[in-house]
């Protein structure tokens, strides 16, 4: 991925490598496509999980994202970042899943992630505080509208810059800027209401 800590040269190398794998997959090399899946399964799964909420729905959406990618493999051309295109697919599918979930009688409550949530080296009190913050953030993220949630996820977890996000979300850079500011403010206010010491 292309977070802030990665050098531009490194990002470009990975990008070239992604498209090389795409070219190999287009030539029928399924191992190359599998390598792409393995490379991006964690970030895509993470994005879907936070967007959709339910672990089962998120895995379904994430898998479908790669299936969809393969279906359009023949048409893919290296005109944009591979990850931009991939997250564009993931975003469309996730929004559909969110809409489907909204039609169901009872929306799934925010569920804790599967891994330990606090460094075992922390004191019990500190671990409890970290768990409290993470739980509040889970609920706060779920409270955001999908449009605000997705922009926050792409920025904070995928490290995308505004221009890349604008391409993924098919909106203007200014829209990214305002949505992100609004998302952060809503989340900040939510945590502040829960307890001023959370931030």
């Amino acid at each position, binding site marked *: 991925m292309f977070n*802030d800590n990665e050098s531009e040269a490194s990002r470009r190398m990975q990008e070239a490598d992604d498209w090389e794998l795409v070219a190999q997959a287009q030539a029928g090399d*399924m191992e190359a*496509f*599998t390598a792409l*899946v*393995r490379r991006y*399964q*964690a970030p895509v*799964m*993470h994005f879907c*999980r936070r967007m959709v909420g339910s*672990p089962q729905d*998120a*895995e379904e959406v*994430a*898998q*479908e994202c*790669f*299936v*969809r990618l*393969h*279906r*359009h493999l023949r*048409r893919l051309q290296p005109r944009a970042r591979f990850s931009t295109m991939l997250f*564009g697919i993931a975003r*469309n599918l996730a929004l*559909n899943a969110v*809409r489907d979930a909204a039609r169901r009688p009872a929306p799934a409550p925010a569920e804790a*992630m*599967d*891994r*330990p*949530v606090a460094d075992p080296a922390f004191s019990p009190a500190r671990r409890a505080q*970290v768990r409290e*913050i*993470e739980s509040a*953030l*889970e609920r706060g993220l779920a409270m955001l509208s999908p449009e605000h949630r997705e922009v*926050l996820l792409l*920025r*904070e*977890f995928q490290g995308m*810059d*505004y221009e890349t996000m604008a391409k993924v979300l*098919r909106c203007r850079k200014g829209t990214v*800027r305002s949505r*992100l*500011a609004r998302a*952060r*403010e809503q*989340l*900040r206010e939510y*945590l*502040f209401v829960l307890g001023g010491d959370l*931030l």
Partner: protein
Amino acid sequence: MKNDDRHVLDELSAYIDGEALEPARIARHLQGCAECARRHLQLLKLGVHLRSMPLPDVRPEFATRVMARIAEQEGAPAPFWRRRLVDAMAVAALVALCAGLFPLWLRQNREAAPAQLVATSIELRDPAAVVGAFVELFDEGVDEKLVEAALEAPEWGHMHYSSESIWELLAEVRPEDVSLGFSDADNNLFSMIDRLGPEEHDVLRELILQRFQAVDQNETKG
């Protein structure tokens, strides 16, 4: 009030991302404004907390399941509704689109364009390019009831689109992928279309995009 005295609360989000329009002014303001500095710190902490959240586990068999689904779908025939719809809608839509847009564009851009043009036949030189766009349309979340309705009345204006991406996809349909026949005395029209240059292709794509946006807005109002 000096420019640096203006509060920057609304600009802090972009500032911490390195995307602020006036980062130097914001930095100066933060040095002298406790309220904005406090909010700045809160947003920084919020980012740290967010990025510290645990990542979801990806099951080891994730990639295997993806590849199994791909293999399964490659071996299965396309759903019947998609086959029927692709056949019906691709032709209907392109006839409507080309009949509606090409004469308009030609009238606007060529003085000698005929007054009345009616598309009477259509041939797809690259059906896969067009069909691919429609397949993607239905994968983007069109309601199945609307799909059924479209099967009953495969007309352009009867479709709803839940994703704006379809506009872009259909805008990718290149004129050179389509051959048109017109019941017009001007036999040169066909060759005129063939002679469209890259810039004219871009104009066509823009027209198509506007057309679909207008259709969508009308559907939304309706």
